[in-house]
C-alpha cells in the first residue's frame, strides 16, 4: 500500500484556479474577445454519404456583413503523410478530410464550407445561401452491415490491414487483428460451464457541456495564433501546422480553460477553419459550435457488436475466453477496438484467450476517444458473461472474480505482464464495503457488480519552476486543466520542496512558453506532468542546496534537504529563508524537467449498483452506487473522488438512456440535450467512493492515473443489477425503459 506520511500529497487544498471559476472570471474558449473579431459558422452535409459535385458560394459572399467564405479548395496543398497527434497516428489526408470534406461527404454533419461575418447570425444566414450539389450515395451505419461483401465503401481506397500487415483488399475494415494466449480450443474443451453471448452498444457522445470553439488570427507576418478549448495545445499547434502546411514555428496555440473534454477535444475541428477564414478576411475569427454540430460533427465513441464466450471449471477457474469485437470507427479509421481488446479480459488471469478485433468504417462521424475508449463497451459484454458464469457455478460474483483476478505477473492477451496492480485490492474493497452486504428489501430491486480496467498512458510532459524571493514558486506547465490537475501537479512540486501547496502557483501556458507536453487525456496528467513537476522540483532542490553550501562555505554534496529544510551539521536554513537570499548567492533559481515516463501503472475500478425496476414501465431507478478505484496514491483525494463520481455518472447515463437515434437516412434525430439524455441531478443518488491505494512502483509518489477506469464498470454493474431486479439479461445498450419492458414481457411469454 502507498505511503501515508506525505505533507502535501494526500491533502485537499483549494484549487488555485477555483476563485476564478466560481466567480465567472475564468476565460473559456468562447469567452475570447479581440478587436475586430468576426464570428464564423460551418455548413455541414445533410447526407450520410454523397459526392460533392459543385459548391457555389457567391450568394453567401454577397450578403452584407460577410467577410470570408471557404471550402476545402482553400486548404493549402499538402503532401499526404502519417502524423502522430495526441493518442494515435493517422494519414494527414484523413485529418484534412474531416476538417473540410474533399470530394465526398462521409457522414451527416461532415463540414463542407464555412463563413466568417460580423456576427454569428449573419454567418449562419450566409451559410444557408451556399449552394451545394450533392450526388447521394448508398451508405452503411452499423459495423456488421459495413463488413458484408458488397457493402458500400466509405473510404474507397482503404485497404484492410490483416494481422498487422496490409492485405491489399479494399473494404470497410481498416484493420483486423487477432491476439491469442495459450490454446482456446483446448481451454473450452476443459471447461465444464460455458457461456456465449452477443452484445450491441450504440454510438454515444462524451456530452461535455461546453461546445467546441476556436479563435484564430492569421497575422500579417504569417504567424497563426489560435485560442481554443482543447485537451492539448501542442496537438492543436501540430495539427493546424500539418493541415495548413505550415512549419510549427508559425503556429502558436493557447489553451483556454476547457469545459469538459473526456477525449472529445483532442482532435481539431474548428481551428484550421477559423485560421483560413482569418487569412481570407484579414481579421480574427471565432467559431463556436452549435450544440447540434457537436453531436453531428465531432467525435462520439463507437457503437459496437461484441461476442464473448467464456468457459470455467466447476472449481471456479476460468479456463478460456474468446471475444469477437467489431467497433464502428465512423468515417475514418481509429475506432479504439484495440484498446477495448486490451481491457476486455484484463481483470482476469486466463490461460487461454483469443480476441479478434475489427476496426470498421461506417457513415457516421469519425469517432474519438471517450474516457477509457473502447473499454466500457468491452466490459459491458465481458462482465455480463462473468456474472452469468458465476451464477451458473453458484458462486458469489465477487468471490468468482477474486478466484480469477489478475495479479502481478499475470499476462494479458495483448502481451504485457502486469507489474504490481490493484485488481485484488479493488475486489476486496468492494466485498468489504457495507454496500455489498446491506439489505436490499422490496420487490423489483437488485444489486449488481462489475469491474473494469484502463491501462493509462505516459507520454511526454515538460515543466519549469521559478523561485520567488518570498519562498513561493511559479510553476509553468502545458497540461490543460479539466478536473483539477493544475492543483495536483503543483502539490507534487510542493511536496518535494517542503512548502505549502498554496505556495506553488501553477500556470497552464501556450505552446510558445513551455516545452512539449502531450494531451490531457489517457489518465496521464497527474502522473506524467506531475512527474515533470517532481523532477523540476528536484532540480530546484539541487540548485538551492548548492546555494546553501555557498552560504556555509561547504561542499554542495554535503548539504541535506528534508521536509523543506537544508542542513549541514548544526546549521539549517528553510526553503523560504534561502529563497530570500538567492540574489546574494548567485541570482535567480529556475528548475526544469521533461519526462517521458515508462513506469505507467494501470488502474482497476469496480462498481456496486442497487436498482429498482418498475415492472410496468421498465424504468430503472439507481438507488445506490459505490465506485471503487485503485489510484496508486491519491494526490488530491477530493479530485480523485470527483473523477470516480464523474466517470460513474457517465457510465450510468451510457447504460440507461444515452444513444444516437439514427433515422433511416443516416441522420441523428436526437441531436440536442433534450433527447440525448444525460443524467440530471434527479437521476442519480449520491455516489460513494472508495480510493484504494496500491502504489505504482513506477512513479515517485506511487500515482496511477484515475481519470478513466471508473467509467468502465457501471453499464455492466447496472445490467447485472437489472437482472436481479427484473429477471432479464439486457444485452443492448442503452438499457432504456422500453427495452427493459420488452424484455420483461418477452420473458413472461
Amino acid at each position, binding site marked *: 500500500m502507498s505511503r501515508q506520511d506525505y505533507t502535501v500529497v494526500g491533502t485537499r487544498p483549494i484549487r488555485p484556479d477555483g*476563485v476564478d471559476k466560481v466567480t465567472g472570471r475564468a476565460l473559456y474558449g468562447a469567452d475570447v474577445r479581440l478587436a475586430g473579431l468576426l464570428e464564423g459558422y460551418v455548413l455541414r452535409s445533410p447526407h450520410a454519404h454523397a459526392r460533392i459535385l459543385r459548391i457555389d458560394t457567391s450568394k453567401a459572399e454577397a450578403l452584407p456583413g460577410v467577410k470570408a467564405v471557404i471550402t476545402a479548395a482553400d486548404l493549402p496543398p499538402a503532401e499526404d503523410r502519417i502524423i502522430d497527434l495526441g493518442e494515435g497516428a493517422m494519414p494527414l489526408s484523413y485529418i484534412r478530410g474531416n476538417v473540410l470534406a474533399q470530394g465526398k461527404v462521409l457522414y451527416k454533419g461532415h463540414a463542407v464550407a464555412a463563413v466568417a461575418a460580423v456576427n454569428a447570425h449573419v454567418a449562419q444566414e450566409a451559410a444557408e445561401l451556399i449552394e451545394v450539389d450533392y450526388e447521394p450515395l448508398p451508405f452503411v451505419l452499423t459495423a456488421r452491415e459495413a463488413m458484408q461483401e458488397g457493402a458500400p465503401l466509405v473510404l474507397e481506397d482503404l485497404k484492410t490491414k490483416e494481422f498487422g500487415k496490409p492485405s491489399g483488399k479494399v473494404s470497410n475494415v481498416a484493420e483486423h487483428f487477432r491476439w491469442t494466449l495459450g490454446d482456446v480450443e483446448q481451454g473450452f474443451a476443459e471447461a465444464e460451464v460455458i457461456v456465449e453471448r452477443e452484445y450491441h452498444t450504440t454510438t454515444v457522445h462524451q456530452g461535455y457541456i461546453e461546445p467546441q470553439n476556436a479563435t484564430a488570427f492569421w497575422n500579417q507576418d504569417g504567424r497563426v495564433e489560435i485560442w481554443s478549448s482543447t485537451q492539448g495545445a501542442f496537438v492543436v499547434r501540430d495539427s493546424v501546422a500539418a493541415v495548413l502546411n505550415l512549419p510549427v514555428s508559425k503556429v502558436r496555440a493557447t489553451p483556454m480553460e476547457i469545459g469538459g473534454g473526456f477525449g472529445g477535444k483532442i482532435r481539431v475541428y474548428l481551428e484550421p477553419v477559423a485560421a483560413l477564414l482569418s487569412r481570407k478576411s484579414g481579421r480574427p475569427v471565432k467559431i463556436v459550435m452549435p450544440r447540434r454540430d457537436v453531436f453531428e460533427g465531432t467525435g462520439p465513441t463507437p457503437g459496437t457488436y461484441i461476442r464473448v464466450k467464456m468457459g470455467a471449471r466447476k472449481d471456479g477457474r476460468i479456463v478460456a475466453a474468446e471475444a469477437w469485437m467489431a467497433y464502428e470507427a465512423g468515417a475514418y479509421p481509429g475506432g479504439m477496438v484495440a484498446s477495448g481488446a486490451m481491457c476486455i479480459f484484463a481483470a482476469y488471469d486466463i490461460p487461454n484467450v483469443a480476441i479478434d478485433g475489427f476496426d470498421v468504417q461506417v457513415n457516421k462521424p469519425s469517432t474519438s476517444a471517450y474516457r477509457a475508449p473502447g473499454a466500457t463497451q468491452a466490459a459491458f459484454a465481458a462482465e455480463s458473461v462473468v456474472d452469468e458464469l458465476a451464477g451458473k457455478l453458484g458462486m458469489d460474483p465477487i468471490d468468482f472474480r477474486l478466484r480469477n483476478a489478475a495479479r502481478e505477473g499475470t499476462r494479458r492477451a495483448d502481451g504485457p505482464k502486469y507489474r504490481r496492480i490493484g485488481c485484488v485490492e479493488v475486489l476486496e474493497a468492494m466485498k468489504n464495503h457495507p454496500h455489498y452486504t446491506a439489505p436490499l428489501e422490496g420487490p423489483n430491486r437488485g444489486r449488481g457488480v462489475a469491474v473494469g480496467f484502463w491501462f493509462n498512458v505516459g507520454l511526454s510532459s515538460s515543466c519549469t519552476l521559478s523561485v520567488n524571493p518570498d519562498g513561493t514558486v511559479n510553476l509553468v506547465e502545458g497540461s490543460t486543466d479539466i478536473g483539477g490537475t493544475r492543483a495536483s501537479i503543483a502539490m507534487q512540486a510542493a511536496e518535494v520542496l517542503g512548502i505549502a501547496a498554496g505556495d506553488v502557483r501553477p500556470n497552464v501556458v501556450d505552446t510558445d512558453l513551455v516545452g512539449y507536453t502531450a494531451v490531457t487525456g489517457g489518465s496521464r496528467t497527474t502522473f506524467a506532468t506531475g512527474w515533470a513537476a517532481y523532477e523540476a522540483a528536484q532540480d530546484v532542490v539541487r540548485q538551492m542546496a548548492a546555494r546553501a553550501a555557498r552560504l556555509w562555505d561547504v561542499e554542495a554534496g554535503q548539504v541535506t534537504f528534508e521536509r523543506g529544510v537544508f542542513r549541514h551539521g548544526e546549521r539549517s536554513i528553510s526553503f523560504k529563508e534561502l529563497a530570500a537570499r538567492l540574489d546574494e548567492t548567485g541570482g535567480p533559481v529556475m528548475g526544469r524537467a521533461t519526462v517521458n515516463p515508462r513506469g505507467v501503472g494501470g488502474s482497476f475500478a469496480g462498481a456496486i449498483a442497487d436498482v429498482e425496476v418498475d415492472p410496468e414501465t421498465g424504468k430503472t431507478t439507481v438507488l445506490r452506487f459505490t465506485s471503487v478505484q485503485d489510484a496508486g496514491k491519491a494526490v488530491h483525494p477530493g479530485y480523485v473522488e470527483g473523477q470516480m463520481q464523474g466517470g460513474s455518472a457517465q457510465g450510468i447515463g451510457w447504460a440507461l438512456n444515452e444513444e444516437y437515434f439514427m433515422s433511416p437516412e443516416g441522420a441523428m434525430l436526437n441531436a440536442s*440535450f433534450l433527447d440525448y439524455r444525460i443524467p440530471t441531478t434527479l437521476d442519480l443518488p449520491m455516489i460513494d467512493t472508495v480510493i484504494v491505494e496500491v502504489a505504482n512502483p513506477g512513479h515517485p509518489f506511487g500515482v496511477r492515473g484515475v481519470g478513466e477506469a471508473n467509467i468502465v464498470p457501471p453499464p455492466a454493474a447496472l445490467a447485472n443489477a437489472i437482472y436481479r431486479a427484473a429477471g432479464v439479461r439486457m444485452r443492448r445498450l442503452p438499457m432504456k425503459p422500453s427495452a427493459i419492458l420488452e424484455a420483461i414481457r418477452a420473458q413472461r411469454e
Partner: protein
Amino acid sequence: MQTKVRVHTTVNGEPAEFLCEPRQSLLECLRDILGLTGAKEGCNDGNCGACTVILDGRPVNSCLVLGVEAEGRTILTIEGVARGNTLHPLQQAFLEQAALQCGVCTPGFIVAAKALLEAEPDPSEARIRQYLANNLCRCTGYDKIVRAVQQAARMLQGVEA
C-alpha cells in the same frame, strides 16, 4: 429597416444600457455586448442551464430570453454573486467541497442555487436535486455539488462559518 433597439436594464445592481438586435438573446447581450462572460452557452435551447441568470428574482435560461425583453428588468449574473471582495457562501462551499471540475457549469449552478437558498433556506437533498435539475453537469455526477449547496445553506443559516 433593421434598427437595433436600445435596452435599459439593471445588471448586478448597476444601470446597464445597450443596443442590440431583437434576435440577440439576453445571453448574447450579456456576453458579447456587456462583456459578462460568466454565463455560458452550452446548448442554446434551455436544456443545460449553463446560461442561468436571475431575472427579476427568478432563475432563467438567458438563452431563451431576448435581450429586448430585459427592458426595465433587474438581472443578476455570476459576476454579481460575490459580495465585493468576499465570496458568497455558495462560492466558498463549491471550492471547499471540490464541487467543480471543468467549471463551465459552475456559474449556472451557483446562480440557480442562490435563488433556491433565498427562497428556501433549508432544502432537503431531494429538493436541491429537483430545483437544480435544469442544470446539467457532465464532470461531477452532482454529488459534491449537492453537498456544496447543503454546506452553503448551513453557512447562510449561521450554523457553520
